[in-house]
């Protein structure tokens, strides 16, 4: 009987993706799973291929999860969140101004210029702009479209927005909570030079999206991922590169804010079609 198999898609947002998944592949194959991966240059084709059955699993951004869910449902099927990183849970985004800014409350942002990440960044564009819209605050947006199609995995747009804030080119900038800390620590933002004027609710980030959770391959895949230990020196460097200390069960309760933002901005149609007019991954 052939070994259970899984073919997974991953988006090559950084050269380290090859290191990570080649390392995981060797580890997974050593434990009885015939695992391989294919790399995509953006998330939309990866989602198309998952729903079309060309791959068994997709290491998906939250936006890619939403679209896969919508496409699959529209086609009468379903996708499932198999696992996620411990670091994918309960993130927040923040809207930041310069310390000397006259903006003190979120309402003060009305009519001001807000820098965001790329058009398809959940954390640095869609969710924080959705948060401002839900608060009834109308702002002008200057987007920093770096790595379009990578759903914000590329940090470049977020960092450019932070730089524009520091340079006085925008009144505020949107970023994920951890990147605010990173930008201050690395010097992109001056220490004590910024204030946080808004913080979104908690949301979840990536998940390992699968079509057939009951198949032998996918079940073994999930068990093996959850069994990866940070105490194992073979996988620890890979976990560090991928930014987690443990794989946890997938959950889909943390995507409501993104879904609302996607609907409000018309990024995807309810059936999963890409409808954002200025989105060319």
């Amino acid at each position, binding site marked *: 009987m052939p070994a259970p198999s899984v073919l997974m898609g991953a988006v090559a947002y950084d050269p380290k993706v090859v290191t990570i998944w080649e390392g995981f592949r060797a580890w997974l194959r050593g434990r009885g799973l015939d695992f391989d991966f294919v790399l995509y240059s953006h998330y939309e084709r990866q989602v198309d291929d998952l729903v079309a059955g060309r791959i068994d699993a997709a290491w998906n951004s939250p936006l890619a999860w939403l679209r896969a869910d919508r496409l699959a449902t529209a086609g009468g099927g379903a996708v499932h969140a198999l696992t996620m990183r411990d670091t994918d849970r309960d993130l927040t985004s923040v809207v930041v101004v310069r310390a000397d800014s006259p903006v003190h409350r979120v309402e003060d942002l009305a009519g001001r210029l807000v820098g965001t990440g790329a058009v398809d960044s959940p954390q640095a564009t869609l969710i924080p702009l959705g948060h401002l819209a839900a608060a009834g605050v109308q702002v002008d947006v200057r987007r920093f479209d770096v790595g379009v199609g990578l759903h914000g995995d590329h940090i470049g747009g977020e960092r450019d927005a932070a730089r524009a804030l520091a340079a006085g080119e925008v009144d505020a900038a949107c970023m994920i909570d951890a990147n605010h800390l990173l930008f201050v620590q690395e010097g992109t933002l001056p220490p*004590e030079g910024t204030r946080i004027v808004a913080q979104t609710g908690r949301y979840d980030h990536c998940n390992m999206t699968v079509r057939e959770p009951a198949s032998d391959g996918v079940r073994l895949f999930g068990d093996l991922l959850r069994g990866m230990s*940070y105490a194992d*020196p073979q996988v620890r460097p890979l976990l560090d590169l991928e930014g987690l200390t443990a794989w946890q069960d997938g959950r889909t309760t943390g995507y409501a804010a993104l879904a609302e933002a996607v609907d409000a901005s018309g990024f995807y149609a309810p059936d999963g079609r890409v409808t954002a007019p200025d989105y060319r991954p």
Partner: protein
Amino acid sequence: MTADVEIDLGGLGFDRGAHLLVQRALAGLPPGGRVAVSGTDAALGVHLPAWCRSRGHRVEWPDPAHRSRLVAVVVRGTADDDRWFGAERAGPPLPAALHSRPPPRWGLGARGALLEAGGPEARFDLDDRDLVWADIAPTLYAQAAARQWDPQTAVPWDDTFALPADVEAAVVQVMTYLVENEQAALVVPARFIGRIHPHFREVVQLLAVQVADEARHMEVFSRRALLRGAELGTSSAGGRQSLFTLVAESDFALASFLLSVLGEGSFVDLLGFLVRHAPDPVTRRICWLAMQDERRHVVFGMAHLEHQATVDPLLRDRLRAAIHRRHDALADTAGLNADVFDALVVLAAGGWNPDDVAAGFAHVRALQQAMDQGRQRRLVRLGFRPDEAAALSALHTRNFM
């Protein structure tokens, strides 16, 4: 909310090192231990959970209605402990009870450090204590480090001496010869430094200083050669061939033997000769400085080979074969550059009367005998019988080094 430990960060934020205080509080607790974190930094509520997430710690939030400085309770995760699961010490910190064969996985970790499991298997092929180590290495290193001299200030470069042209030419010729020899003496240990397991770090340090010694020697001999003129002397093909056989030796024990025990040992005699017969204070001084360093090199070469000879009964066979091999390789070459030999005679003669030249010639012959006697003594210390030591010494390159 309950907690095992409470800390107040005051106004300190994560942008200015607050993680150190949180980490310190967590360090004393088992996984699941709870630290209540209070503070007034405006970004603390954003940065604390972001930091915890990346470290595998969980965060619990206080009731928003509860007005206090409490920001959150951090629940210690397992990642910090997991990272050090299977960690091991890379041997003892001090050079007592060194490992006889330190494993490749210790790699570049400091000896005695706690090493996280994983990481590269570094290939340091000179990893046999008996081959590399000598107990005197730490002491010799300390001496070597303490006796480093500054070529600029240790030598009376500004002395106004003036030599007759032919004597100056003899000095330049000898300096030219010394530079090429020091070049070889630098390259040989340099090639081994990167192959020695860092577990034997005092040996690596000692050889590194030895390389630095040779670098200074090359500098001062070159500088003396050009002190009064613009040209160096000659370099013979046979001399370079002799040095090349030294550089080409890839076996650490054999290279140490040929370079330090035989070559530098003879070189110490040559430098002593030059100190005695130097016609000017600069030449005398630089030869004396170099001689002190070279003596140390010989002591280390002897020490680790003497140790190895006691544990490896076949070592002497290999040393014997190395001398024969080098002799055969050089059998068809001229040996010492005739210009060097003549220059040594001129320096020892101190004048151009036939009697002066005869005396100079006799001094150089005596130097060659002293070199031979020295080599024989060192060979006997390595366990060769006196008659065999005499025969082997006679096979040593005529190029001295």
